[in-house]
């Protein structure tokens, strides 16, 4: 039998049992659509996170006090000892690295912010002029913290968009005074709304000179040193420089952790990619369910078509040809179901994108191949037993009327 004839014959058989075929096709389609939808959500999450990191600048290098092998996990705390603090002098010293473009010390605390009778609790960031470029901040009005001696605690501040709106209402915040704890600061800049980036909402923050923040919170310690490498290629050099300079300053102890944005990004990328793969695999389980359906539908088909199978044998069809006809029939149903499932899945993704425009949904290429391929493989695996049963039918019994 010619291959084209086998396909045509199987197609006719599938089309002949409309309800059965439609049912199987739908089950396959749902399985494939589920894989497509679920992986699109996972991929959307991955792209979202990657984009958030990208907004921070991939040349970012962050120094944390304490030594940790697993970047980002609260160092020191895990090791059960208090690490040596990072100081403003440390931050000034690392400027010596030629791989770095900018360095900004960062002190973080919570402060009570007052304007007249209005009061609001807000995160207070202490830093320098360099912070603006490192964190890609844009100003709605005024200017950022002035460049100059970072040890000087001048009484100026830059406020986030939300803070400005809530504490000053309709009035222009620029040039006004606000009080944080017992210190007064003059507002010299208002940030444009930036939204949250990685858990830090600068819209709600008040930014003051680093020395002022240190006095305010009565600490010498920095929360972080933020640095920006001159280029992506120089990130490893920057990391090495930072570690070396701080080791020298800390009596030869390696007691800081340097995180590069690239490494964090790669980690997130990997985790979310794996997660997407995992949920995709879970969705693929629905394809196994569809496979069981294929098997049952095919078994019913074999039973109903006993006489036809007997006839084909009488006409000289070999067992292999009969098996092939049934396998091709299953494959055709899976292929059609896969195509329908891809269409449904993509429609679903399109709808999701309409409702959640912030998330960059997208079906990963591997899922577009793997989902229908899994459907096909499942159908063939589960059709194997019915096809074999058909091929083994005894022609005399198959032809006998019962």
């Amino acid at each position: 039998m010619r291959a084209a004839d086998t396909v045509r014959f199987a197609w006719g058989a599938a089309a002949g049992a409309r309800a059965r075929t439609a049912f199987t096709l739908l089950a396959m389609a749902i399985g494939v659509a589920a894989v497509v939808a679920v992986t699109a959500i996972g991929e959307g999450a991955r792209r979202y996170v990657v984009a958030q990191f990208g907004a921070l600048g991939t040349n970012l290098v962050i120094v944390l006090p304490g030594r940790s092998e697993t970047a980002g996990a609260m160092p020191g705390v895990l090791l059960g000892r208090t690490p040596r603090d990072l100081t403003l002098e440390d931050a000034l010293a690392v400027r010596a690295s030629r791989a770095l473009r900018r360095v900004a010390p960062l002190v973080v605390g919570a402060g009570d912010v007052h304007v007249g009778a209005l009061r609001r609790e807000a995160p207070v960031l202490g830093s320098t002029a360099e912070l603006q470029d490192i964190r890609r901040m844009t100003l709605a009005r005024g200017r950022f913290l002035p460049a100059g001696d970072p040890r000087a605690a001048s009484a100026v501040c830059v406020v986030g968009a939300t803070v400005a709106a809530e504490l000053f209402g309709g009035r222009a915040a620029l040039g006004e005074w606000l009080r944080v704890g017992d210190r007064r600061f003059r507002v010299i800049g208002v940030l444009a709304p930036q939204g949250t980036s990685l858990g830090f909402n600068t819209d709600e923050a008040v930014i003051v000179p680093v020395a002022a923040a240190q006095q305010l919170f009565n600490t010498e310690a920095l929360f972080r040193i933020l640095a920006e490498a001159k280029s992506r290629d120089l990130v490893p050099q920057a990391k090495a420089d930072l570690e070396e300079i701080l080791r020298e300053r800390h009596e030869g102890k390696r007691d800081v952790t340097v995180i590069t944005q690239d490494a964090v990004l790669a980690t997130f990328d990997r985790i979310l990619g794996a997660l997407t793969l995992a949920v995709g695999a879970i969705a693929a389980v629905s394809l196994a369910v569809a496979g069981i359906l294929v098997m049952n539908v095919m078994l019913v088909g074999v039973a109903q078509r006993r006489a036809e199978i007997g006839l084909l044998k009488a006409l000289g069809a070999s067992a292999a040809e009969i098996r092939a006809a049934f396998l091709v029939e299953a494959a055709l149903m899976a292929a059609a179901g896969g195509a329908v499932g891809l269409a449904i899945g993509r429609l679903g993704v399109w709808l999701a994108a309409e409702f959640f425009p912030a998330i960059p949904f997208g079906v990963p290429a591997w899922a577009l191949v793997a989902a229908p391929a899994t459907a096909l493989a499942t159908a063939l695996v589960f059709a194997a037993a019915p096809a074999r049963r058909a091929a083994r039918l005894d022609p005399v019994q198959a032809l006998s009327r019962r």
Partner: protein
Amino acid sequence: MIALSGIERVYRAGGETVRALRGVDLTVRAGEYLSIMGPSGSGKSTLLNILGLLDRPDAGRYLLDGRDVTALGDDERARLRREKLGFVFQFFHLVPRLSAAENVELPMMLAGIEPAERRRRVARLLADYGLADRAHHRPSELSGGQCQRVAIARALALGPAVILADEPTGNLDRQTGREVMAALERAHEAGAVLVVVTHDPEIGARAHRRLRMRDGAIVADTSA
């Protein structure tokens, strides 16, 4: 052409054994026209199925065209069925979703004949059996006699050397039965061996050689 010797066929069903064929010997020469008659359960269908390589004897030897086919494997038997044998059944066994033309085309498709050549041969066969205007009808849209003629056209599609018909008129009225027999006999006149199992004495009498079976044995073998 055909030589059976000592053919035994035993069915075992639930502890009971039925000897459907008890040492059947039969020689058929090329171009013969046989009828097999006998009471129900006497083994006629069993014998025909063994002749048609659809069933295997439990003992005995079967030579087809001088070749021992008793112990052939399934694939080889399938090939011989396709190349040498044509079947006609009481219940037609047309594939219901296929048109008359497609049913006739089936054996040629299995033989791997080219589509264009197939179409030509199908058209000629349908015309030969008065079915040209029924080519695209489904079996459900055909009368019993038309269905059986489609089945005969299908059996003859690859020019078999032996045609085996098991009660081909069993489901048809008398007049239609005669027409169907005439159709089968035309194939015989073209050179094929024709073996017809029947309950109908009138039809049985049309054959040149008449076998009578009882209890799994051939009890009479008369030539006209």
